């Protein structure tokens, strides 16, 4: 007999192959609408950039569509925009992505543009200079946002000298240091087919799209790529605090510490913990229920340790934006809920509800071709297996109240944490 989760799971057939140049290609046919999603991910990112060139990876990704050996910036924009499709580039600490969603009739153009951006970018000097000045302005603009400012400060204190201490877009002084040569070198060092994954999902037949992919990506030359080793960040053994004065309406409060890697086997127990403590549906979790619904301290408050899990350990964070006069009460409220989940076992009902939520809502992550394309990359990077959808309910259902207590004790710390607050000075 099928379980309810098996019935609601939307299974799909993943075709995986590796081109002769080492590019891993993942294909899923999804004829739901006459369109396709393309996601080409290079396994590099801000974690590999030198400290004094912080912001390099994001800048490189922003410049991929500003000129290639075959097309000018305007020609790229004109080609994609004439179809009504989207083409975007993005970078995080561990990925650089070029992605497109196009109508079925524009499949070849979509593949061609994504390939061109990854293989042939030229980082034109005038665009490098424009991008540097735009990034500086964006940093200045972001500094107007109290939540962003408090979030940056949190990372600085949690990660110390590990690359994740930096804002991914870099600092004004490091942006100033980046040259066209740095961008070209970054591209040369990491952008190789054997260090990339391509996923294509949508309205096509696997047999006929293979040749079309080979045509655009097959000529990309394999070369050795060595990914620098990065020492692991160390969990803090004392309390760290920082207050950033801002003339704002609210105090923005982050409380957190080092979290876990995505491949940590306790990831699933911590997902259940997150659902009970600070996530889930609506305001059912303990933190929003207590701090928002009962005490009326905030519109936004949450906590999570799994959300930021990646190649590097993410961070555990609890967040609240509250009126300045409630700052102390809010911090105490967050800490009380963290202590409670560490000290006392969760109830069977909370556990059951959290497990049902996670297994029941899993299907929403696979609704669109673009979502499935992103999942394929995740599954490949973290070795989840393409049958992850079938296995996931089992991982979650196996979690017990004892597991929650064990992982809460192991991964949450109510003494040695970092606290950052941005907000008005007079209320402190």
């Amino acid at each position, binding site marked *: 007999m099928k379980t309810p989760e098996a019935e609601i799971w939307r299974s799909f057939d993943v075709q995986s192959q590796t081109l002769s140049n080492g590019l891993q290609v993942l294909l899923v046919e999804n004829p739901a609408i006459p369109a396709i999603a393309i996601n080409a991910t290079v396994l590099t990112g801000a974690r590999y950039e030198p400290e004094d060139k912080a912001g390099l990876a994001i800048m490189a990704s922003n410049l991929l569509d500003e000129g290639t050996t075959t097309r000018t910036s305007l020609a790229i*924009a004109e080609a994609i925009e004439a179809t009504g499709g989207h083409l975007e580039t993005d970078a995080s600490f561990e990925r650089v992505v070029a992605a497109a969603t196009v109508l079925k009739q524009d499949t070849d153009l979509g593949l061609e543009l994504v390939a061109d951006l990854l293989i042939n970018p030229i980082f034109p000097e005038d665009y490098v200079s424009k991008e540097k*000045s735009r990034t500086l302005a964006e940093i200045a603009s972001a500094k107007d946002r109290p939540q962003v400012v408090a979030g940056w400060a949190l990372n600085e204190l949690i990660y110390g000298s590990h690359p994740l201490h930096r804002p991914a877009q870099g600092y004004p002084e490091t942006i100033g240091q980046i040259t066209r040569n740095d961008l070209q070198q970054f591209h040369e060092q990491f952008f190789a087919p054997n260090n990339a994954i391509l996923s294509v999902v949508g309205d096509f037949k696997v047999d006929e799209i293979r040749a079309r992919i080979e045509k655009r990506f097959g000529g990309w030359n394999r070369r050795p790529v060595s990914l620098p080793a990065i020492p692991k960040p160390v969990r803090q053994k004392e309390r760290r605090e920082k207050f950033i004065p801002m003339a704002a309406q609210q105090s923005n409060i982050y409380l957190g510490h080092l979290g876990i890697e995505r491949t940590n086997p306790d990831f699933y127990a911590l997902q259940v913990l997150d659902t009970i403590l600070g996530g889930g549906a609506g305001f059912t979790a303990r933190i929003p229920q207590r701090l928002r*619904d009962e005490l009326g301290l905030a519109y936004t408050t949450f906590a999570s340790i799994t959300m930021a899990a990646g190649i590097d350990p993410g961070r555990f964070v609890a967040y609240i934006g509250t009126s300045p006069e409630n700052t102390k009460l809010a911090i105490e409220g967050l800490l009380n809920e963290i202590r409670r989940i560490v000290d006392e076992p969760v109830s069977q009902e909370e556990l059951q509800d959290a497990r049902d939520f996670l297994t029941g809502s899993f299907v929403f992550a696979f609704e669109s071709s673009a979502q499935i394309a992103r999942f394929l990359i995740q599954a490949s990077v973290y070795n989840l297996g393409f049958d992850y959808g079938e296995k996931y309910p089992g991982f979650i259902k196996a979690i017990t109240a004892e597991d929650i207590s064990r992982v809460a004790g192991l991964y949450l710390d109510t003494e040695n944490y970092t606290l950052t607050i941005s907000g008005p000075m007079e209320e402190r």
Partner: protein
Amino acid sequence: MSVSVDSSTFSGDVVRRTVLDNGLTVLTRELHTSPIVTSMIWYRVGSRNEELGQTGKSHFLEHMLFKGTDRFKKGSVDLLTLKNGGNNNAFTSHDFTAYYFNFASDRWDVALDIESDRMVNCVFAPAEFEAEKKVVIEELQMGLDSPWGLLLQELDAGAYKVHPYRNPVIGWLQDVERATSAEQQNYYRKHYYPGNATLVLTGDFETDRVLDQVFERFSAIPKRPDPPAVTAVEPSQRGEKRLQVQWRSKVPRLAIAYHAPQIAHPDSYALQVLNLVLTEGKTSRLYQRLVEREQSVTFATAEYAESKDPTLFHIRAEARGKHTAEEIEASIYEELQRIVTDGATTQELDRAKHLVQAHFILSRERAVDQAMLLGQVETLYGLSYIETYLNKISSVASEDVSAVCSRYLTAANRTVGYLIPDGSSASDVDEGDYEDA
């Protein structure tokens, strides 16, 4: 149930429109790609319906619909969503308030139980109301910590003299603080009833069966008389208005609001195309001028608000480096003048049309996007709007774009707002230093 009309809409997809005897409109659209159902209910009430001194009522009501009925106590809506592995949310605009649930298709009908019950049975316990008021005030304060939230609030308040669109959807702080549970309950009784709502169901179900389920849950809810219509009409603007808003940032930001007709007005199609020509994508006029050539902004964007009554066409931009709001403003006007003089190019018109067409196709992928589109169209303009929409956009010509630009985007018809520093700067980055380096 009475009237049932098959509406053959875009690209041959079938949306069925059914009206129950009590006036509830039901739109259903089957989508069998994923085992998911979205249930979304739209009420024709928003800040447009609020009187002076009572602003924020529609939005506050949205919060109270999660605060319990006799059948579903406080917290139950979220708890049922959790237990069934779904998600829910709600939003309020000038013209409507909407609530939705996404569930797997084997358990989604719990959404019908909740919506039919809370349409008429919400309890307004004064203690719950006062507790939630704190949350709403935190939400309002959070909005004021956003530069655009603040500037657009002040700009819209300055642009309209009479029409309630002048008030922020969340309300003015002073009104929210003084709101009472009794007044809130009266507002609810006045606006929440079957004839003022559209229930949209999209996803993996069989329409006939689903309509039976809807009938079972909703048909017993009595009819109600319609509240008095909103009669305010905004008089013409008689000259440019300018305003400055003090804020903590050193980064200059500007926003321009032009009075413009409501969506579905014959001129609205050319205005939508104008919007895309000005700021959609890297090929757009303002991107090419301000981001590429002058490098004076981090971004420039235009928004033509979808609305029931005549609305505002906004253009806004954030300055960078040593560039000033005045300089950016002048460049924007030059670009508008070029459109007035020369219209849009064939390439620009084609691009805008392809974008709109592609957007229609892509919006059919997820049940929730589909429900969003259908509900908004039915609530604001009627479903027939969709049937003619693509044709009307396709028939927009270069001279139409230039005509609406010269008719509406004029100096006398605009309100211009600048965000200026209040002296308490939060930003210690002097981005101006880099530019000449």
